[in-house]
């Protein structure tokens, strides 16, 4: 019975940490994004609130909370609010299968820094990740307005195409790892002394395209498309209810999908890799903390890469988006799977 309570306590602590990371870092990333965007466009960005605008997220939050709460006439109140929950909950749930680092011992108990090490973790990532489409569909419908509805239809077109593509793209690393558990995928990469990016560059590129599509980032932000649809499905939302959608879609989903990319292609918490030879750790002086630092560093770099793309590229048209998905990306991933199946025995040995 004693170990049951300890397990429960550990699970609770993990949940709190995950919620804190998801929402706290998510809010802070709004500042990061504004700074990056500003410097890409040679502006200083937020400078007034705190040192270099560091307290800007708090000011934004206060502003959003004190705004008047508007509700569209003839809208559907229940679905309107359900959409907010449906956006937030699945996105945070994805975190439960992200492994943050290797197993460590604390007060004699072995702790795995992953909330639930299900043996089908990757499938859950995609299941929860694509549930975002309900939030957008219901938000678009319940708002009783044309722009949100058009936006939700567009997002459905994008998501349905890229959901197929991302699943096939991930097959490559999964074949090499031979498992669906996120924790074990990283362990296999460390055993095989190989980041899968070296053998799966095609899969990685396709995965990044699909991530941009799922997050609704430029060049795939047709569902927001400020110039055409005002702000897409969030037009009729105000205050913090509006704020939650970008927070979830751009930041929480952004961190999770970057973290999953790190797990699949960059060996999770392992240090720099020389293919088939071993690992080089320039951060060796951090000791036991080094794996966690590596994981956070890689995720942050990947997220920064997404921001960089967002603020440099123009937007695709909806037909171009679906055409690239079905006519370019899908054949590429299929060819990649055949290639992976051919070289996989070399990696397994």
């Amino acid at each position, binding site marked *: 019975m004693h170990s049951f309570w300890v397990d429960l306590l550990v699970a609770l602590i993990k949940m709190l940490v995950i919620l804190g990371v998801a929402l706290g870092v998510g809010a802070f990333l709004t500042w990061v994004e504004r700074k990056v965007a500003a410097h890409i466009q040679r502006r200083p960005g937020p400078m007034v609130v705190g040192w270099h605008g560091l307290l800007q997220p708090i000011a934004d939050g206060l502003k959003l909370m004190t705004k008047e709460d508007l509700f569209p006439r003839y809208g559907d109140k229940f679905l309107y609010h359900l959409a907010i929950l449906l956006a937030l909950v699945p996105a945070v749930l994805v975190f439960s299968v992200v492994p943050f680092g290797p197993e460590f011992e604390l007060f004699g108990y072995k702790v795995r820094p992953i909330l639930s090490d299900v043996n*089908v973790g990757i*499938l*859950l990532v995609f*299941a929860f990740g*694509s549930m975002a489409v309900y939030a957008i569909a*219901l938000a678009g*419908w319940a708002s009783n307005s044309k722009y949100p509805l058009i936006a939700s239809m567009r997002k459905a077109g994008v998501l*349905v195409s890229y959901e197929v593509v991302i699943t096939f793209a991930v097959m490559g690393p999964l074949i090499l790892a031979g*498992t669906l558990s996120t924790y074990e995928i990283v362990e296999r990469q460390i055993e095989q002394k190989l980041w899968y990016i070296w053998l799966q560059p095609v899969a990685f590129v396709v995965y990044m395209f699909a991530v941009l599509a799922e997050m609704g980032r430029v060049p795939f932000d047709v569902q927001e498309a400020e110039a055409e649809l005002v702000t897409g499905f969030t037009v009729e939302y105000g205050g913090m209810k509006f704020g939650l959608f970008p927070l979830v879609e751009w930041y929480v989903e952004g961190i999770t999908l970057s973290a999953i990319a790190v797990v699949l292609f960059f060996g999770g918490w392992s240090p720099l890799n020389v293919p088939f030879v071993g690992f080089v750790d320039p951060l060796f002086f951090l000791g036991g903390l080094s794996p966690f630092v590596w994981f956070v560093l890689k995720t942050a770099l990947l997220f920064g890469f997404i921001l960089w793309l967002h603020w440099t590229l123009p937007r695709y048209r909806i037909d171009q988006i679906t055409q690239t998905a079905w006519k370019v990306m899908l054949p590429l991933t299929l060819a990649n799977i055949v290639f992976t199946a051919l070289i996989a025995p070399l990696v397994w040995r």
Partner: protein
Amino acid sequence: MGRLVIFGLFSLLAVLSAVGIITLRNPVYVVVALLSSLIAVAGIFFTAGAELVGALQLLIYAVAIAVFYIFVVSAVPWEKAKKTESHYRFEGIVSLPVVLFLYVEMLVVFLLGVKASPKGEIRRFIEELGNAEVVGAVLFSKYFLAFEVVSLVLLIGMIGAVLIGRKESQTYEDDTP
């Protein structure tokens, strides 16, 4: 004990949402109730330890299939969607025995499954190999023929859907000399 409580919660949710599916008047609410029922069933699979089936239930039913319902329903004109006189009442009553027969068949299959492994040998098998491996091994050895035939049926269904949905082929023929 904890497993039983969670199983009860998910079952209750599944049954309540199933009742919602057939009683609610608003079509979008019906789809949301369907979604909730599908997720609850996935939860039951997870509590039973069938993680692969649970994840597939979420990925295929709760996301891929239900999302099409929601988009079709939200694109249908509202006056049409709320009409009830067009419902097939007679056909509904006629199909009731067939539905009952299907339920009895499911019950029989379930009991046969219990009989095949009364002491939970399959569970031990799963714990040794992992969910996905067991399903893959069975699917690609014992049921390989059935698996391939099903994929053929799906292909035929897809071709049929394309043929039915494709209307512009006729108009092209009319326009071209």
